[in-house]
């Protein structure tokens, strides 16, 4: 499955400034691994012990994977995977 992973502003320092990354993967975990293979520092920023860190939300086509199958959530071709941490700026 070819999907687009969207990176928020505060993480683009570890993706060489890239905000959208096209990768292949059948699940969210596979798609994120493909992104980590290109940008290794991102892995440590948003995962620990093989799982997502608690402050990171990931959405597939608008739905939170926390309420689906987590990193095992299946992807469809063309899905958007949005990585979203809380922001405090006002």
């Amino acid at each position, binding site marked *: 499955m070819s999907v687009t992973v969207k990176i*928020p*502003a*505060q*993480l683009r320092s570890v993706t060489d400034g890239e*905000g959208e990354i096209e990768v292949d993967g059948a699940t969210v975990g596979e798609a994120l691994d493909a992104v980590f293979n290109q940008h290794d520092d991102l892995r440590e*920023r948003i995962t620990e012990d093989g799982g997502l860190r*608690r*402050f*990171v*939300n990931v*959405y597939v086509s*608008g*739905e*939170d994977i*926390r*309420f689906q199958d987590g990193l095992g959530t299946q992807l469809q071709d063309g899905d*958007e995977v*949005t990585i*979203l*941490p*809380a*922001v*405090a*700026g*006002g």
Partner: protein
Amino acid sequence: MATVAEPIELVKNRIEEVDPASAQREVESDGALLIDVREPHEWDEAHVAGAKLVPLATVAERITELAPDRAQRVLLFCRVGNRSARAADSLRGELGYENAASVAGGIEAWRSAGLQVIEAEGLTPEQRMRYSRHTLLPEVGIDGQLKLLDSKVLLIGAGGLGAPSAFYLAAAGVGTLGLVDDDVVDESNLQRQVIHNTERVGMPKTESARLSIQALNPDVKVVEHPTRLGPDNILEIIDQYDILVDGADNFPTRYLLNDAAVRLRKPVVSASILAFDGQVSTFVPYEGPCYRCLYPVPPPPEMAPSCGAAGVLGVMAGVMGLLQANEVIKLAAGLGEPLVGRLLLYDSLGTRFTELKVKRDPDCPICGAAAAEIPESEMGKFPDYEAFCAGVPVGA
């Protein structure tokens, strides 16, 4: 045959127009039938005693019932005299009412001539003018405007988000605006915080905002809270308001506000901004998710740069602040569909909006199934949010 497209001047040349004073005389002395062809929401705003409301589109259908005798003198009026001119033309030309005439200048001229107009209750003449573009909207109307004037809204932060939203909420006639901010105006604020200005650098932000609001709309009562929200004062402050607007610039305040708002069941319109991106959602306790359902824990400090450190596009802050103001107006006037259970992301560089679904978390410690109602003795007790947001577990 007259059509809507025909220039109004041609129509007026064909018909008889009377001035408001003559019209009133004819109605009182000669039994002329006075018909208001405007729409019901316009009638609600102001009308003339003795007139019958027959919206333009229904005149042809209802006239035979109202005036069975085609020789009856029929005087039609609207807001400024154009719709009624067409109605009079149609009554004369197509339906044979030879004595139909239009009141020149409509109800506006009626009012200007000093003749009696029954105005809607609740708004002063100045308010009717000031809010006329609101009250013309059938969805808002007089009732919606009165609700806005009655509403009490608290803005947490008078900065990048609070400045634009406070300005527009004041213009919209939100009756009471509370402002929480313990900061003073700095030159670096002025690129986005449009409620402040160059002369007020160094002035407390709440005071500067109050001056701008009072100059814009004297209807608004401004309450300054030049303090920082903490566990000791938050319940007392937010309890005075109906709607809370979160434009805070730090996580401790955001989590504290959420937890206190859920306890007091106050809706929070929450937005945050960084660089070119913004997020906004509306949290209505127990109807939808709360901030903690969305973000159970804050990110560590190295992942949470402030706008001061990372920069922010001023216009983007304005867009997000005004989306918050839009949500507030909807909640206060009971309009439309609020952003409950939805998180709207704005990417200003791509000019893209993305909507994400936010669900209530059954395990949420604040509003989830296991979260007990807070006993009175626990009200006002909150954990150390500074420590929590620095990564130390709550209660540690």
